[in-house]
């Protein structure tokens, strides 16, 4: 941690009254109106909101194996520019992160890059093939201290294997993050199943393929008394199942991506694969249900599913294009547009859904903390009144597959402090 001291002058914690906030020795040293700035570098934060450094439970950093699309270095820089101080890296790398050695490699690459904490997620099954459990305990015991396990990209569709995984990770306080997709129901699927898929002649990905797995897994989690986390919830029906499971008192959490909070399947009419994601963009009714569920706490957190892909995997026919879109650098503005500007969530709610809850679900104790004296100085300074136009050429990610290029978004990430040290100042990497 740096010894550098920063005084954030006029900053508004969670959008509240302006204060001075002193960051020293990696912590928030003082918060108040008369904090002494002696020896500190003063940052003019007048009018800027302070939020806890964002935490992404669902990031694809692509290293090792697909460094043409993203590296730990470029992905975490994108994270910092998006206000993140910690990201959980999904294991669908090449090779797959299903061993202690692999997760340690990713963890070290993140530490060396130094833009934010990188917490690897381990694969549930060997090679994410869904046939036998990976060495979950070895990954948990490794230097990376893995606590979240997922075959993301694939569903752990075998009910017995899923049950065993849920039971097994109890030994070290782990959680299984499920990519809920019944594979037989989505064979050949290209977009949300409905009237539009019929018109466009694209294979349908029915809502029930997600909901059937969500229902099964919350029942399994309830049965074995373990924790399950549902990745990228995309349908109104899934929301109802998660709500029901929580009412039962089962240890079930869920995430939603920024794009599922804003974009609808209608965009697929263009056949532009920039809109191809998995799970697919759904209907406006789904979007409204997801927003409501995030606001009322049924959905615990926002996770980006940041999925960089090189140009040749996107500038092609819809059917063969890789699913996924960038998320880290635009998540907070999208959440502002979809939830804050619509009156569904206040800034304390945003901090909860984008920092506190994901850190808690992933077991990352030092993140998502209150902006209070003595807490780790992971925070983001944000100007919600600003507006910016997304420019592909200025993204830190190595890939450019964002659907927002050329679009004006509200809000601007002005600075990110990671352990008291700025990784981003005045909107630029330090």
């Amino acid at each position: 941690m740096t010894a550098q001291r920063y005084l954030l002058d006029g900053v508004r914690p969670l959008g509240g009254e302006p204060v001075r906030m002193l960051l020293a020795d990696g912590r928030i040293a003082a918060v108040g109106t008369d904090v002494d700035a002696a020896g500190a570098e003063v940052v003019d934060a007048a009018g800027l909101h302070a939020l806890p450094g964002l935490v992404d439970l669902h990031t694809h950093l692509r290293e090792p194996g697909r460094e043409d699309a993203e590296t730990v270095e470029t992905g975490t820089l994108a994270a910092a520019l998006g206000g993140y101080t910690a990201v959980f890296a999904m294991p669908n790398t090449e090779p797959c992160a299903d061993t202690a050695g692999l997760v340690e490699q990713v963890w070290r690459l993140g530490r060396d890059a130094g833009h934010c904490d990188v917490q690897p997620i381990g694969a549930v099954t060997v090679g994410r093939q869904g046939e036998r459990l990976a060495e979950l305990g070895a990954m948990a015991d490794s230097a990376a201290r893995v606590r979240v396990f997922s075959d993301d990209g694939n569903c752990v569709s075998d009910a017995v294997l899923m049950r065993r995984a849920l039971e097994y990770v109890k030994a070290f306080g782990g959680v299984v993050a499920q990519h809920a997709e019944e594979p037989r129901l989505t064979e050949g699927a290209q977009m949300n199943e409905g009237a539009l898929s019929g018109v466009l002649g694209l294979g349908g990905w029915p809502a029930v393929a997600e909901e059937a797995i969500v229902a099964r897994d919350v029942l399994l989690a309830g049965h074995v008394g373990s924790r399950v986390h549902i990745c990228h919830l995309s349908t109104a029906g899934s929301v109802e199942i998660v709500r029901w499971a929580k009412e039962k008192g089962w240890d079930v959490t869920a995430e939603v991506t920024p794009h599922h909070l804003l974009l609808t399947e209608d965009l697929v009419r263009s056949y532009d694969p920039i809109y191809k994601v998995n799970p697919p963009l759904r209907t406006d009714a789904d979007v409204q249900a997801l927003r409501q569920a995030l606001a009322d706490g049924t959905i615990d957190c926002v996770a980006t599913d940041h999925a960089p892909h090189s140009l040749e995997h996107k500038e092609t026919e819809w059917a063969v294009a890789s699913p996924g879109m960038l998320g880290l650098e635009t998540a907070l503005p999208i959440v502002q547009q979809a939830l804050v500007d619509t009156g569904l969530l206040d800034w304390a709610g945003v901090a909860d859904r984008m920092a506190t809850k994901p850190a808690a679900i992933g077991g990352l104790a030092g993140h998502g903390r209150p902006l209070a004296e003595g807490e780790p100085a992971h925070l983001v300074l944000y100007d919600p009144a600003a507006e910016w136009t997304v420019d592909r050429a200025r993204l830190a990610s190595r890939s450019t597959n964002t659907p927002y290029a050329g679009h004006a978004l509200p809000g601007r990430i002005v600075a990110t402090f990671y352990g008291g040290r700025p990784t981003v100042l005045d909107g630029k990497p330090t």
Partner: protein
Amino acid sequence: MNRHLISAGDLSRDDALLILDTAAELAQVASRPVKKLPTLRGRTAVNLFYEDSTRTRTSFEVAAKRLSADVINFSAKGSSVAKGESLKDTALTLEAMGADAVVVRHGASGTPNRLTNWIDGSVINAGDGTHEHPTQALLDAYTIRDRLGRLDGLSVVIVGDVLHSRVARSNVLLLATLGVDVTVVGPPTLLPVGVETWPCATSYDLDAVLPKCDVVMMLRVQQERMHAAFFPSAREYSRRYGLDARRMATLPEHALVMHPGPMNRGMEIAAEVADATRSTITEQVANGISIRMAVLYLLLGGTEPAIGHDPAHTEPTESA
């Protein structure tokens, strides 16, 4: 007319009738000793076929050549990704070669839409995945009008694998635009989700709709559907949705039997039905050339009468 022909849904009633009338005019060329017009001399049409389709490719090729266009056949199996060169690069290459029209057949729905982003010339959809095949629908409409003398108010039944059929999609859109009452019939597993929003009626009962229709259009059932639980067996499909002599006998006397080909004889259509005089299957092939000539002519900027003499003498009698 739009610059491209991607979907039958893009055609207004006037556009569609203009194509049919132009095709009727151009059909006369086929009966001449010299089956060629100078209309598109100096223009280049590229047949970009990622899927094998001798019938459609040849039809477009003959159509373009009868209008004196230069034709380049660019065949490429599989997806462009599998092939190594991206679709975009292929498009830019064709653009650099000065293609005035690109006729594209591709296994992926939406590929013609993608090409319009990269190509200045006209893009003509010759079948994309399970999306559309607008010139097939146009030639079907032409054939019906040619045989029955009109389209408005007719009843057309489309039978079979509507879910995977680009021919059905285009026909439903085009025929509805032209005032035809369309009913799609098939097992529920082969009717698309959301079909109730299409401009057509639906039925699971072929026997119930046959006595009232003017045209029955059979769709090809692909072998892989027979092994993917869309229906229990080929035999059961054939019994419930196949057109055999017994069912044909329930049709009104004037009613036509159509099939876009290639047929599974004995599966969706019995041999004696396929070869019956009310069957239009070979006419559909011949009419395809006239339709494609008309489409190429109109998209590539034809403003003069296609044949080049007084259109009063070429007024199609069947367009009443």
